[in-house]
């Protein structure tokens, strides 16, 4: 009984988070085309629904009813497995993201944390671990398609993901040093009390360099412009998913957007204070509405995540694609030394000025 109830509550939380993530993916597909359109002085999609707001539903229906083609000579098993391997790790990381204040509510005689599915003590490592598994979907999809464009895309992505994952991991070490915990809930709580306590600005050593390294590496890890070498359409048709169609293509597509949301959530939680408002406390608590103060926190988290997502679109509209050797040189010879130097300086600062 007890365990069944707990399972039901957990499943409800998972369903809610998955629903929100899928909804955000839908919003993002439209938002990206609209933002790109406005930046290039176009209207973006306008046909389906008022101002084109039903475009994601039309796209989804189209992909759902398209014929599912498996190319001849493709490895059927891996070809089917690859989209799932890409999508599952992208969704699974949301389990440890705190979307709102870490309060507990009593329900059916149990303690429930409503804004985080599972507060495990290695939260950030858990996300890194599953982010690295996402690369398998891309690599195996490229290999199983039996097409040289797909294979080249898959190989490029393998090298790129390994190179930039290292930088992501090293960039967040500074934050872990300052907060003294790997749990995203504890890291966020350590940044309470105004924007000058956020780790991007906080004393003893602001993590501004780490943040820049993280942002650039996150863009590279999600295969977005200007680092979208694995799917460079001018060279590789569509890269690793050239041969995919219908729902399998949609899986890769959703995985890319879910990954974008995930890295944005991590950036918000690690560097930008998570659900903390940029001023101490919350306005709703000041005016006596403490029981709904969590709304303000959740809104702040959403604002930060959406600002970060907007940055992705902005970069796509602005920057040209890098050449492959430039990408590798940039990752290993520029980003890596900066991230390592940041760790050394943060460690020295944290030793002399313990928080």
């Amino acid at each position, binding site marked *: 009984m007890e365990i069944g109830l707990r399972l039901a509550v957990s499943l409800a939380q998972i369903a809610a988070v998955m629903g929100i993530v899928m909804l955000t993916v839908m919003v993002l597909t439209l938002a990206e085309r609209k933002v790109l359109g406005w930046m290039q002085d176009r209207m973006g999609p306008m046909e389906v629904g008022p101002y084109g707001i039903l475009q994601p539903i039309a796209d989804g229906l189209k992909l759902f009813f398209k014929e599912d083609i498996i190319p001849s000579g493709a490895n059927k098993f*891996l070809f089917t497995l690859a989209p799932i391997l890409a999508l599952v790790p992208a969704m699974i990381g949301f389990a440890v993201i705190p979307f709102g204040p870490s309060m507990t509510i009593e329900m059916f005689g149990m303690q429930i944390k409503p804004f985080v599915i599972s507060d495990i003590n290695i939260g950030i490592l858990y996300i890194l671990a599953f982010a690295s598994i996402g*690369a398998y979907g891309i*690599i195996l999809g*490229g*290999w199983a398609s039996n097409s040289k464009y797909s294979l080249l895309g*898959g190989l490029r992505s393998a090298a790129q993901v*390994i190179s930039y994952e290292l930088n992501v991991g090293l960039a967040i070490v500074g934050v872990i040093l300052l907060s003294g915990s790997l749990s995203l809930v504890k890291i966020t709580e350590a940044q309470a009390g105004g924007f000058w306590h956020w780790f991007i600005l906080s004393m003893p050593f602001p993590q501004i360099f780490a943040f820049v390294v993280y942002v650039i590496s996150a863009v590279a890890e999600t295969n977005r412009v200007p680092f979208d070498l694995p799917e460079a359409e001018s060279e590789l048709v569509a890269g690793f998913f050239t041969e995919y169609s219908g729902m399998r293509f949609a899986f890769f597509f959703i995985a890319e957007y879910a990954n974008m949301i995930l890295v944005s959530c991590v950036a918000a939680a690690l560097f930008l204070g998570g659900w903390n408002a940029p001023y101490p406390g919350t306005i709703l608590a000041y005016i006596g509405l403490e029981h709904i103060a969590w709304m303000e926190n959740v809104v702040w988290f959403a604002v930060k995540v959406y600002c970060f997502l907007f940055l992705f679109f902005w970069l796509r509209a602005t920057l040209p694609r890098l050449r492959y050797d430039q990408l590798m040189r940039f990752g290993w010879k520029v980003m890596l030394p900066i991230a390592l130097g940041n760790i050394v300086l943060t460690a020295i600062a944290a030793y002399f000025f313990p928080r």
Partner: protein
Amino acid sequence: MDHIFFFYFAGVIAVTSLLVVALRNPVYSALALLIMFFHVAGLYVTLHAEFLAAVQIVVYAGAILVLYLFVVMLLNVKTEERYHDQLPVAGLLGVMLSTEVILLLIQSRTAAPASAVPVDTVIAPGNTELIGEVLYSTYLFPFEVASLLLLVAMIGAIILAKKDIGEGAQ
């Protein structure tokens, strides 16, 4: 409950380890290895070593195995036949090793030594902190030696890869 999890993880680890060497297609071998890494990580979780579990996946599944796959695809080996005439030698070694293991199992009747630290003290402050402390105090020397070995290996790899390393100076 613990025993069910242990036998599940141990069984899958044993089967997938066999598959890694038995499968003809190297990509399938790599996939079997991936499943094995995950179950080893699961075994760590049942032992309350979450940090090790995460590191196991980050390092082995996330980096090393991706490099293996990279090489397999680059060479584009469909099926590997070169090593299949090693059966007599491998069989002889296998028989020797398994007799050794069985002999050791028969002779060691004593119970496994209890863990030096009780489980509760490891869980209380989080095992990440404890691993860090132990690595930089009790096991500082082995840790530094391992780092040095890795550094040497890295320099060796760079020298092997960069053939024109001395030519720029001339």
